[in-house]
Structures are given as C-alpha cells and as structure tokens.
C-alpha cells in the first residue's frame, strides 16, 4: 500500500476529509487496486450497517414509548406552559359557587348566540365560533372569550378549550366546532375570572380527549392556517 492508512481511507468513506486530503486519497486509490478493493469493502460495510438499522427509524414508534412522552406532556408541562389555568383554579369555593349559580343563567342568557344545536349536537356559533377559528392562545388580548389549550384528539382532529361566560372544550368537525363540554365559565370581567371552578373539569375533558402533546404556539398557528383540518 501507499502512505494512505486505514484511518484516511475510512475518513474518506465517512466524508470527514477536507478537499486536499480527499483528492490525495482518491488519487492513491486510483493507482492502487488493493487500496481500491479495501475502499470498496469499507463503503459497502457502511452501507450495509446503515441499511440494516434504517428500518427501525422508519417503522412506527411503539405505543409504550409514545405513552412515556404523552403521560409526561399531559401531566407536568401544563403547569409550566399554561399557568393561566392554575391561577383560575385558585378561586375560593364561595366565589366559585356564585359563578356556578350565575353561570347557568348566562349559558342561555347573556351569550345567546354562542352555542346552538345542530342535528342534536352542540355547536359553537357567533363570538365563540369566531374565537375558536381565529384566536391564538399565544397572542390573544383580553377579550370576552379566551382560548386555553389546543391539541389533537384521539382519532384525529383539533380541539381547543375556551373560557369566558362559558368554559369548555370544542372540537373541529366538518365545517365548524362541536362543543364537547360547556360549563359556566370564569366570565369576562376580572371580578369573576378568578372564581371559575370550571377549569378542573375542563382539564379532565382535555385529558380524556388528547392524543399526543399539547400544541405549542407554532403548531397552533400552523393548524389555524390550515383551517383546523
């Protein structure tokens, strides 16, 4: 062999040589059949190893591994990433029951157009539908309706939690939003906001529906851009 050692040869195969050295090794290989044969061996070894394990990265991830991440995503980070929810949970019991009492009235009263029924299911309308369609949790201002969490549900499809006069979860179905849950919400004025007791129940619904992790700001935005389809 020439002065080209094994390390140089495999560095060529691994794409680790700079231009000058690459040329030098290639010239040596062209002039030395034994070296060329060795290079071929190394190339096919790399290809065979890579090819052997490649299918592992292409097959679907087993459920048990996915579950490790999902459990973690639905339990811990909610507190980290959505502190709003925690604050809402801190309301006193008296204030909470006050809102509950008022809330039922509101459900049918102050926002008559927010939830309607179509073919026997609750659907979002009016301001609620507009908020679900267009409002991003990451950028929303203090409005009458606040969007909480955005996530994909088991079986596919986007869902979002909301709070306002009514709190709950709605999932995108066909052309609109099917309301999965509607509870008296925290209300839009600050006096009532901290009194909401809806969030624990809303969270239970989110937990029951969610598939995978909660959408972060980027995914929320991307999903909205695609019309929640």
């Amino acid at each position: 062999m020439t002065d080209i050692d094994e390390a140089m040869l495999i560095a060529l195969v691994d794409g680790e040589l700079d231009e000058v050295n690459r040329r030098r090794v290639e010239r040596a290989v062209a002039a030395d059949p034994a070296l060329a044969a060795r290079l071929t061996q190394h190339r096919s070894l790399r290809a065979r190893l890579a090819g052997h394990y490649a299918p592992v990265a292409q097959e679907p991830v087993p459920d048990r591994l996915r579950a490790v991440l999902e459990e973690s995503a639905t339990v811990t980070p909610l507190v980290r990433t959505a502190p709003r929810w925690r604050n809402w949970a801190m309301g006193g019991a008296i204030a909470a029951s006050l809102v509950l009492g008022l809330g039922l009235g509101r459900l049918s009263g102050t926002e008559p157009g927010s939830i309607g029924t179509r073919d026997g299911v609750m659907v979002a309308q009016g301001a609620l539908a507009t908020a679900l369609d267009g409002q991003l949790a990451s950028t929303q201002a203090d409005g009458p309706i606040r969007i909480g969490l955005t996530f994909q549900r088991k079986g596919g499809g986007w869902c979002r939690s909301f709070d306002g006069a009514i709190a709950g979860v709605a999932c995108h179905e066909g052309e609109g939003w099917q309301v999965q849950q509607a509870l008296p919400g925290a209300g839009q004025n600050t006096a009532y906001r901290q009194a909401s007791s809806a969030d624990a129940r809303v969270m239970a619904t989110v937990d029951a529906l969610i598939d995978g992790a909660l959408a972060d700001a980027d995914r929320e935005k991307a999903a909205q851009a695609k019309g929640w389809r």
Partner: protein
Amino acid sequence: MSFERDLLAILPRLRRFAASLSRDRADGDDLCQAALERGLKARDQWQPGTRLDSWMYRIMRNLWIDEARARQRAAHTFAPEEAGAHVGHAGDRDVEAHMMLSDVDRAMQALPQEQREAIALVLVEGLSYKEAAAVLGVPMGTLTSRLVRGRGALLELMGEAA
C-alpha cells in the same frame, strides 16, 4: 410540552441507536424507554439551543454502559470461573436470541463496547466525528482509532461479503 414534542420527533432515531447498541429489538426498546424516562426527569439539565439528539444519545449510551456493567457483575457472581471468557454472551437466553439474529447484529454484538458505540454513532446514526466524539466524551483521535479497529473486526466477522 415542546420538550416532549421534540423528543417525539427524534424518537425514531433514538430507537435506531438503541437497536444498534442492544442485543435485540426488545432490549433496544427497553433501553430507549429508560433513556426517555431519564431524559424527561433530567430535562432541566438540557440547555435549549444545544442539540437534543446528542444529549439523548449520551444519556442512552450511559444507561447502556451501566446496564452492561450490572449484567457483567451478575455474570461474574453467578457463573463459574471458567465461563469468565464468555461473560456478556453466556446464558441460554443469549444463545437462543443469537439464533434469531442476522450477521450484522451478531457482528455488532461481538465488538467491544467502545467500538460498538463509535460505529453506531458514525455509521448508523451518521454523526460527524466531532459530534460522535462529543457524545462519547473522548478525543477525536480516540474515536477514529476505535472506528478503525471496529471496522476491521466487523469486516472479519461478517466475512469478505460485507
């Protein structure tokens, strides 16, 4: 939340790395699960802006080393002295598992650990020498000599047809 999402995105590659280190796919997934759990627990130690895949490779590799050490200790404790030469490969379960393995799996398993992990990171995972050396915490020269020796051994084990 985006931490889990990022882990999910690299999970297929983590599984592949685990498979190339482990004796078989089931062991690989066990290793992968342990690494995910460890990574989630240690999430505060990961520095955003650095590579999550390298960080997870390192976690997985350390777990793998620990586990191999524990297995070796157990083998030393329970196997008779003469069996010492086969420590790490002894046991009926191993023999059985071996029969199901391909040439590649078998050859990879025959490599010393430090060569196998180097080969796995560079040839299977496609890391650069610099990245692989960082994951393993060794100088570049150490990495390249392990790659040379490991490849020589693999070519021999797998025959000229490799």
